């Protein structure tokens, strides 16, 4: 029985608050940036203002539920300002945006404090006063005559404002109709997809439903009149709305007169001004550990299926007829694969969402550093595992911060160098083979001075790969160097570390005076991997196939042991092997892991690290399969070179090796 006074589990509640608040803060920031961009183009973004308002309002409500008064105060003050802006037609002036960004920053700071169980500091009086004294933007007006009569009574002040700004900016305004029909629905075209399509090429001012005569095809008997401001051609608008160009009218022409009006209330969900709302309701937020649990259970199920298969094999050997059992197990195998794929899909987030925080980061860095930076994000529809995204973000922040802080010249310097005044930082993401993503962070700044780095590191640097190695060696990058001259400096070892922990790679190209580009190659997911399994000495291991360049035969006679004996007389673990006419370093994996002499090795796995191949000898290959990988996090077994464990079906953990890291270990030992 629950005691009436039993405290609710505040801890769990706080966790949920933090997650939700952070999302809302991201929305608020994104809306503010959109509003700021709109000021630049002399247009308004009523929808962004409304989104901002909604985000602030929700944050306020959540914060007051858990009694974090300072957040409530800031959110409330800002909400008041934004509401005024909404009434004034959806515009905020530059100063107001600036203060709003500060206020959202102050809220974010306090949400972090809640997350880290720190004391939440009071709302800064100065900030509250500044918000209170700030006025929303000015109202642009539109001559009544410019609005088609049938729209006149149906436009709110903010929608009129939007029209006025569009006309002012000479953006054409169009009206069109969309009729949901059976034929359209069959092709996946609904009012939601039309909204999305039109939203992508223009600013939708208003959508109004009206009734039409129902026919066999138009069963609902509803049409939608749409008012949109867009630079796109009549043809493009018609295409986006999946309608005929003849049904798209410039504002000066008449739309067909609406027949009988419908009761607007019954169309409330459609009437809402965000096309996403309808879709948004089908979204459930799930904490990642719950998906991890699901995956763990699934991997047990898969392992038990393997055991079942083995038992059936024994039955069969005893002369029983197992054909029908085989069939069932085969189907089960397929179902389990589908289930695994479905769970994987549930873990995926859009890369675009992951990159979102970078916009606000670049803005504030550029502001404080006096540079003018244009951030370009290009990730299209690429998705990745939330667990990878969470680990990757610090590396991206690091690279972008380095670019803005150290690589980009001041505007005047840029002009003097014949470069555009505004620098460009670009973050792009594409999917590459083997379930990997390539994320490129590039800038058009000063580039890295290889000679200067070589002098400082006191070693020759012939190419970019070697340069990156020097930049990412902990001894170099943590040294406090004057980064303005080198273009890059602090913390690059952390970026490389993040990439290699994920089983990925960092590479770089740079051109002095023209810019630098870093490429992070990481797996789409770390929960499931395509692996090679092999035997090495007494135990089996697996490695991701993506890191393996080639599997080669090893003939003991092709291995050359160079004369690099250690001072104590023991041989270095590095030897050389001939591969297509080139000698490449080869390491006995068994000897490196101190589990085997490596004398029985018949195969070698060749990997590439920053372009340099290195081979690991193993006894024999077992196979190739897709496995669920668990990370090892207990301190007792958290050792370098081991990325996690998996179950190959025998109910025992099999180690997943990180050959990149083992390669580094081997080289370091070889150089000792």
């Amino acid at each position, binding site marked *: 029985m629950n005691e009436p006074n039993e405290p609710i589990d505040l801890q769990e509640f706080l966790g949920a608050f933090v997650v939700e608040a952070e999302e809302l803060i991201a929305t608020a920031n994104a809306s503010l940036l959109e509003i700021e961009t709109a000021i630049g183009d002399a247009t308004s973004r009523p929808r962004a203002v409304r989104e901002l308002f909604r985000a602030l309002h929700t944050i306020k409500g959540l914060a007051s539920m858990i009694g974090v008064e300072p957040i409530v105060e800031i959110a409330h003050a800002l909400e008041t300002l934004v509401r005024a802006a909404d009434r004034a037609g959806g515009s905020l002036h530059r100063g107001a945006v600036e203060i709003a960004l500060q206020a959202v920053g102050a809220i974010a700071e306090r949400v972090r404090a809640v997350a880290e169980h720190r004391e939440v500091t009071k709302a800064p009086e100065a900030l509250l006063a500044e918000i209170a004294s700030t006025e929303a933007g000015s109202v642009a007006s539109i001559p009544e005559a410019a609005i088609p009569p049938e729209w006149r009574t149906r436009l709110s002040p903010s929608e009129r404002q939007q029209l006025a700004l569009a006309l002012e900016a000479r953006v054409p305004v169009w009206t069109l109709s969309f009729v949901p029909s059976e034929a359209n629905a069959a092709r996946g075209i609904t009012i939601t997809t039309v909204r999305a399509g039109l939203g992508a090429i223009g600013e939708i001012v208003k959508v109004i439903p009206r009734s039409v005569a129902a026919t066999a095809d138009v069963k609902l008997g509803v049409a939608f009149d749409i008012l949109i401001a867009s630079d796109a051609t009549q043809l493009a608008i018609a295409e986006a709305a999946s309608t005929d160009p003849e049904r798209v009218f410039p504002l000066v022409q008449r739309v067909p007169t609406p027949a009988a009006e419908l009761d607007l209330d019954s169309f409330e969900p459609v009437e809402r001004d965000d096309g996403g709302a309808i879709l948004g309701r089908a979204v459930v937020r799930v904490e990642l550990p719950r998906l991890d649990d699901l995956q*763990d259970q699934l991997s047990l199920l898969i392992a038990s299926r393997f055991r079942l298969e083995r038992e059936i094999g024994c039955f069969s050997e005893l002369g029983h007829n197992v054909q029908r059992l085989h069939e069932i197990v085969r189907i089960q195998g397929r179902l389990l694969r589908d289930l695994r794929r479905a769970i994987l899909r549930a873990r995926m987030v859009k890369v675009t969402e992951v990159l979102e925080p970078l916009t606000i980061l670049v803005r504030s860095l550029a502001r404080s550093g006096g540079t003018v930076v244009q951030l370009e994000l290009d990730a299209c529809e690429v998705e990745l595992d939330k667990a990878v995204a969470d680990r990757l973000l610090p590396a991206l922040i690091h690279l972008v911060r380095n670019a803005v802080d150290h690589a980009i010249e001041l505007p005047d310097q840029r002009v003097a160098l014949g470069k555009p005044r505004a620098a460009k930082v670009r973050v792009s993401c594409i999917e590459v083979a083997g379930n990997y993503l390539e994320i490129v962070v590039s800038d058009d700044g000063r580039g890295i001075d290889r000679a200067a780095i070589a002098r400082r590191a006191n070693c020759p640097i012939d190419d970019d790969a070697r340069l990156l190695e020097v930049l990412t060696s902990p001894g170099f990058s943590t040294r406090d160097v004057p980064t303005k001259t080198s273009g890059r400096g602090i913390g690059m070892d952390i970026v490389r570390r993040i990439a290699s922990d994920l089983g990925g790679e960092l590479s770089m190209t740079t051109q002095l005076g023209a810019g630098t580009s870093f490429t992070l190659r990481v797996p789409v997911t770390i929960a499931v991997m395509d692996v090679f399994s092999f035997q090495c000495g007494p*135990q089996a291991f697996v490695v991701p196939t993506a890191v393996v360049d080639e599997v080669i035969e090893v003939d003991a006679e092709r291995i050359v042991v160079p004369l690099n004996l250690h001072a104590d007389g023991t041989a270095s673990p590095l030897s050389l092997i001939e591969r297509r006419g080139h000698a490449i370093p080869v390491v006995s994996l068994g000897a490196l*892991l101190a589990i085997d002499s490596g004398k029985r090795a018949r195969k070698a796995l060749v990997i590439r690290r920053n372009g340099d191949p290195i081979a690991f000898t193993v006894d024999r290959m077992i196979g190739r399969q897709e496995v669920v990988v668990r990370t090892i996090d*207990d301190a007792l077994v958290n050792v370098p070179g081991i990325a996690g464990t998996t*179950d190959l079906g025998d109910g025992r*953990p099999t180690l997943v090796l990180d050959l990149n890291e083992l390669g580094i270990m081997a080289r370091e030992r070889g150089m000792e």
Partner: protein
Amino acid sequence: MTTLHVTFRVGTADYALPAAQVLHLESFEIATHVPGAPTYVAGLMQVRGRVVPVVDLRLRFGLASIEHTIDHRVVVVQVGTRVAGLLVDSAREVVQLDETSFAQPPEILDRQSAGFVTAVATLANRLFLLIDVSRIIGEELTHA
């Protein structure tokens, strides 16, 4: 006041752990060796859907390793959020130990067991050594 304890044998001594720290007992077949881990780590075992590191208490206590027998058990313990297995020679009993019977370990024993033994309990003329699990599974490692 008495508390429920799980007792087990390592070498010639009997040890005890509060039952509250013990999740369950498992028989021991084989653990996956983890190259590079401390020598007293027997390896990784899959226990009821979880992969846990197993500490060989013989090696941890500085005793010689012995051939594994059918009596060997893994005592699965939880300390905070960490779950680990302790490989012991045998584990059979659950006993009620009277906390008033707990005494400081003799100094000589204390040095031998490197501070793993926190107290000595007596029950029906038998001695049980109470051990500090978080130290055994290497709490110093987590701070490294």
